[in-house]
């Protein structure tokens, strides 16, 4: 089997096959012999190339929280494999769906459907734990949809608004 995991700009393909009671895992051409013993509550005891490592894995949709041995915790996104997802602001060929970067409350909706907006203009403001996050237009465009309202509590990843680039509007 093959899995693709993304972390920020980093994208890694991992191949894994069952071998005897364990696994053979390839990461960037490096081959690891792995025994695995699942525990409770996300705990996963591994022996990687003869070395005992306790790992924890938790899921949240596509996201994977991983803590393996003394290595820093990482959050990976399991890619569905069907090519790159278009990142907001990078490819203004189609409409951009602006997602909430954190769980929080909507304090400001500074635009309305149909409005013309300039790149960098604040569209929505989220607040959580004394912090504000401004959701801005990734390019010059038109507001195609607004999917939140002031006072609403939204989950991370929720789509807040959709912007259509001017070129295709």
């Amino acid at each position, binding site marked *: *089997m093959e*899995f693709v*995991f993304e972390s*920020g*700009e*980093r994208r*890694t393909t*991992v191949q*894994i096959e*069952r071998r005897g009671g364990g*696994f053979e*895992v390839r*990461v960037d051409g*490096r081959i*690891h012999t*792995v025994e*695995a013993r*699942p*525990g*409770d*509550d*996300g*705990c*996963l005891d*591994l022996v*990687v190339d003869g070395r005992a*490592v306790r*790992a*924890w*894995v*938790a*899921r*949240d*949709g596509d996201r*994977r*929280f*991983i*803590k*393996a*041995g*003394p*290595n*820093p*915790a*990482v*959050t*990976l996104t*399991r890619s569905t494999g069907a090519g790159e997802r278009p990142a907001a602001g990078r490819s203004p060929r189609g409409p951009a769906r602006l997602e909430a970067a*954190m*769980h*929080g*409350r909507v304090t400001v909706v500074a635009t309305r459907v149909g409005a013309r907006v300039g790149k960098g203009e604040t569209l929505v403001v989220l607040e*959580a*734990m*004394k*912090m504000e*996050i401004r959701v801005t237009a990734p390019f010059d465009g038109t507001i195609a949809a607004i999917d939140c309202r002031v*006072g609403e*509590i939204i989950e*991370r990843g929720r789509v807040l608004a959709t912007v259509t680039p001017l070129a295709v509007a």
Partner: protein
Amino acid sequence: MSRLAARPIRRVLVANRGEIAVRVMRACEEADLEAVLAASEIDATGFAARTAPELVVLGPAPPSESYLNSKRILAAARERRCDAIHPGYGFLAENPGFAAAVADAGLIFIGPPPGAMAMMGDKIAARQAMEQAGVPVLPGVTGRAGVDLAAARRAAGRLGFPLLIKAAAGGGGRGIRIVRQAGELEAALAAARRESEGAFGDGRVMLERFIEEARHIEVQVLADHEGNCIHLGERECSIQRRFQKIVEEAPSPFVTAALRQRLGETAVAAARACGYVNAGTVEFLVAPDGTFYFLEMNARIQVEHPVTEAVTGIDLVRAQLAIAGGGPLPASQDEIVMRGHAIECRITAEDPARDFAPCAGKVGQVVWPTGPGIRVDAGIESGDTIGVHYDSLIAKLIAHGPDRMTAVRRLDRALGSVVVLGVETIVPYLQAVLRHPLFRAGQATTAFVAREMAGWPPPGETLPDEALVAAAVAEVLGSSGGGPVSGRASAGTGPDPWDRSDRFRVGGS
């Protein structure tokens, strides 16, 4: 008034949450005092509530209806027959009106007198009082009514650039702007005033010279009702992001014995100048040449108090309780000796890779580190929910060792064994700070984070193979039918009357 306040305490209302509420309740137990935790509805089933000997619910989650609501807090104290209130830090801890209301209700406020608090809470008034007391302050301009554009331009001509604009009522890094050239002054002044007005309801700002490569060094003081005042050495807190401390240590690797004595004496003079009683902290900015300037006085127990406890052996919260009850200081100045080196990291639920955006949600497994010289003051445990109403601090990790390098290594290793599953934390970022050559050499200043950590995480950094192996194995095992992988997603398999995000919605809307 202070004489009236000084009488033995029997029963303490702890009007705060998270790790500091747990810390204060433990100190009460050790001092043989009863403790009642006053919590918001959303916190009534959290970690602090589970450790509380007794609980009273203040109201819904928003601070205005709970931890900032002085009427409800006073009513809770009366209802539960408490004779004292500990405010922790944040919320109402430095609100002179609240401190006065507590005293008016015949209760003991475990903190300084309202007058001292009011003076130190107004940065302009504090600066003037300090100048009169001979405490050095930064070259700058101020005035009861704050600084307007004309005054700011005049000051800039006299002081030169860079300049710092600060809110008179400031705190938490809001209302602060650095101005590096004349063209930025007008916009920066307007922004600082607007932010200050919004955050504190007080748009007054002041201007000071901005010191490059300065150290943020603060001195812990303790003062009793009899007029005795001692200092417990310094803490260095130069590692800040957005003006909020994330790594603190005692002693400072920069401070010599001679400088320590001058800082300590100055801090005691500052505390005396405002009639301070109980535990407080005098913050200084120390220039590379060792000259130092009064910044402000924090009239509360501070987040970073454990590093001072580690090196002095003095329990500061216990001392707060004793002093508020009319008791003596825990030691004389001669008895205060610093032993070894201690460093604290604040573990917050924020994603350092996305501009420190706070991360809320239900956490899965939580495992805190153990071992020699390791202290963990935690505000959550496995399965708890991190909400959006309060700040993102979930635990403090403190390492104490015979020397600074041992403390650094202990802390780094301890950070590496922290498990908080389901939300991002700044642990990897903190490890990068601790491993930085400048930090290891004791040479990090307040410029460190902006200059040295801006590129974090390093773009070319690869993921550890072990993490990718674990991810792949979990996919394989998890896909073969409800296997071992758990966490947030597996927790809720239907409507759950206890789901805290539901509660949160009730409280938050």
